[in-house]
């Protein structure tokens, strides 16, 4: 068989069959929540495949970018589909990463020895968001151009180096001739290569450290063999991910740039809201105080607080989480066994508060549309969200923690779960009868 001959070819030169055997016979714990990260991985594959295709039709210059993307949909219908699939996968990619991260968080999979992989994962979330942002900026339509303009304002607001960063990106004052070509290089080269390398590190570490599990015996990995059992399951996840993206891309139009028109710095679509994962930043900019102090005669622009300080603060908190959490349950053990969320109400509370804060900021990013729909002045909504950001998060956090505590009490009261024992007997007709046995 051809596959065996190829394997043999490499084995004689590299001794690779021993590695192959280990990899194929490896045991992986199985749980539905372990597939969330795989969904993200498969989105990335779709993104690279469609993205490479798109590079052959896109022109990364301020003059031609918009026209090249519009022409893409007109000249060949498959071009429209490619763009739809690319954009939808990006949206699902970030969502899958965040859900995966939620699973890791609430089951405490980030504990020693997996702190490094948590950090790698957080970096990938940041890079994925940046790739999304630089990607939807490329068509140079009115909406994305405005988003890019806002991004440049945030970059400009950094003390000392802001103007340098902005000039570097633009090749001069905004809007410079180099901005789109730079964004393009970053989007199609630096970011995807970085994500690819981090994925390799992420999976490499998973392979070496072995996957966590819910089964209580931490001395061994309990689960399914990779080949053929797990391979078939992950193939199902692969097919399901792509099918879902294709259905969305075929039926739901995303980012209709033809309707927005080409970007000019004096036109903007109204309402103007970014892709969902950038919503919290836009919301933060809307809620940010009109506060612009001067330091040594230099202004610290209002966008600096929500755009840079809040973002960095959130990043540092999330990156440092395994070490922050280790202060709550100090031990130096290796943790390979996952805990159900209810086992640690404090973790549920902190996680729920963090998620709520993100949701409040994301909601704030469409306050103008809510104002129009509900006939409430937008300033009232801003006030509401400004209070909800700290207080709502706190309230939801406390409520979630107390709910988890009740759940834990109920589980503890029920005692250890008895295993169900059944006796199977062959009957006269040749079939099988099942009879439950009461545990002793």
């Amino acid at each position, binding site marked *: 068989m051809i596959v065996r001959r190829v394997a043999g070819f490499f084995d004689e030169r590299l001794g690779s069959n021993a590695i192959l055997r280990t990899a194929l016979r490896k045991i992986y714990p199985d749980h539905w929540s372990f597939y969330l990260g795989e969904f993200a991985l498969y989105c990335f594959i779709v993104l690279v495949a469609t993205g490479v295709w798109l590079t052959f039709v896109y022109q990364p210059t301020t003059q031609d970018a918009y026209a090249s993307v519009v022409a893409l949909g007109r000249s060949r219908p498959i071009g429209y589909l490619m763009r739809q699939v690319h954009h939808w996968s990006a949206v699902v990619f970030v969502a899958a990463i965040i859900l995966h991260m939620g699973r890791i968080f609430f089951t405490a999979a980030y504990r020693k020895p997996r702190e490094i992989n948590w950090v790698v994962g957080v970096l990938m979330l940041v890079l994925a968001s940046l790739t999304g942002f630089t990607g939807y900026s490329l068509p140079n339509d009115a909406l994305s151009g405005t988003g890019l303009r806002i991004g*440049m304002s945030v970059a400009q607001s950094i003390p000392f180096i*802001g103007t340098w960063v902005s000039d570097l990106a633009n090749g001069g004052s905004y809007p410079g001739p180099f901005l789109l070509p730079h964004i393009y290089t970053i989007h199609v080269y630096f970011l995807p290569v970085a994500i690819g390398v981090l994925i390799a590190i992420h999976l490499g570490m998973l392979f070496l450290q072995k996957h966590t599990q819910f089964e209580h015996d931490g001395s061994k990995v309990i689960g399914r*063999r990779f080949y053929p059992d797990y391979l078939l399951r992950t193939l199902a996840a692969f097919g399901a991910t792509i099918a879902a993206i294709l259905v969305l891309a075929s*039926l739901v139009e995303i980012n209709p740039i033809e309707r927005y028109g080409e970007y000019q710095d004096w036109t903007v679509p109204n309402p103007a809201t970014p892709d969902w994962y950038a919503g919290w930043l*836009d919301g933060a900019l809307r809620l940010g105080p009109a506060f612009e102090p001067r330091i040594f005669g230099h202004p610290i622009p209002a966008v600096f607080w929500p755009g840079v300080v809040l973002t960095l603060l959130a990043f540092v908190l999330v990156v440092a989480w395994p070490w922050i959490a280790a202060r709550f349950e100090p031990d130096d053990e290796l943790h390979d066994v996952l805990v159900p969320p209810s086992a640690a109400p404090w973790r549920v509370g902190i996680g729920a508060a963090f998620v709520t804060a993100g949701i409040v900021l994301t909601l704030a990013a469409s306050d103008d549309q809510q104002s129009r729909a509900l006939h409430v002045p937008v300033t009232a909504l801003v006030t509401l969200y400004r209070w909800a950001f700290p207080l709502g998060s706190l309230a939801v956090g406390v409520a979630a923690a107390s709910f988890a505590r009740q759940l834990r009490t109920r589980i503890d009261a029920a005692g250890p779960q008895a295993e169900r024992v059944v006796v199977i007997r062959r009957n006269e007709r040749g079939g099988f009868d099942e009879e439950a046995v009461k545990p002793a």
Partner: protein
Amino acid sequence: MKALLLVIAGVGALGAAVSAALHANPALAGLLAAAAFAALAVWAGVAARELHAPSDLSEPRHAFATVPASEALPRGGAVSRLWALTLGAFAIAGIVPLVSLGRRPLRAGTPWRRGARLVTPAGTPVRADDVAVGGVETVFPEHAVGAPEAAVLLIRVQDGAVAAPPERRDWTPRGNVAYSKICTHAGCPVAIYRHADYTLYCPCHQSEFAVLFGAKPIAGPATRPLPQLGLDVDHDGFLVARGDFDGPVGPDRWDRPA
């Protein structure tokens, strides 16, 4: 059953390819491809289930063997303080090429000059009575239509309604008042004018500016008024600028002149 799923997957893939090649509706190609991948997924799921493979196989976990750092990194090696200092020197030297990439000369002001006529994006000059009271128009200097950061909102209010300090009393002939259209918060176009309360409104972050009071910010995150463009009327009755804006256009940055 399994064979049928594989046939569906194959037919779906080919069908998607054919419909794309024939330039059919892209949704058709997309849905056929989706059907192909979904069939593949179901096939894999069914095949996995039919394996009846055990889910409680196990292999031992081992903690990695640790080696004391003193053993892994013996003292007296190549790493010395001098070595670290040298490395630092290389790092500092590397900053120079990096810094040299940024900081291009800043654009000095905008193309607005004394006597420059206000024209619409289509290039039509604007007379003092062209915009009706309550109306608004985006205008550019006649020699630089569409130039970055030159966009101006020309708003017509009742003559004398603008509360201007004495030195700017002449800046709003016949109720024509002009401000930079680029928001001082994050650079979006301040695209919406509400005549009911003489307010300019930015659709990006909901900053509001009071048109009758020098476009000072009254709500939202903006901290600085929109720069004003003094207006005049030339011999032929067209609106012209009295000079450049009265302040820097667009969002603030560290080295913005005060």
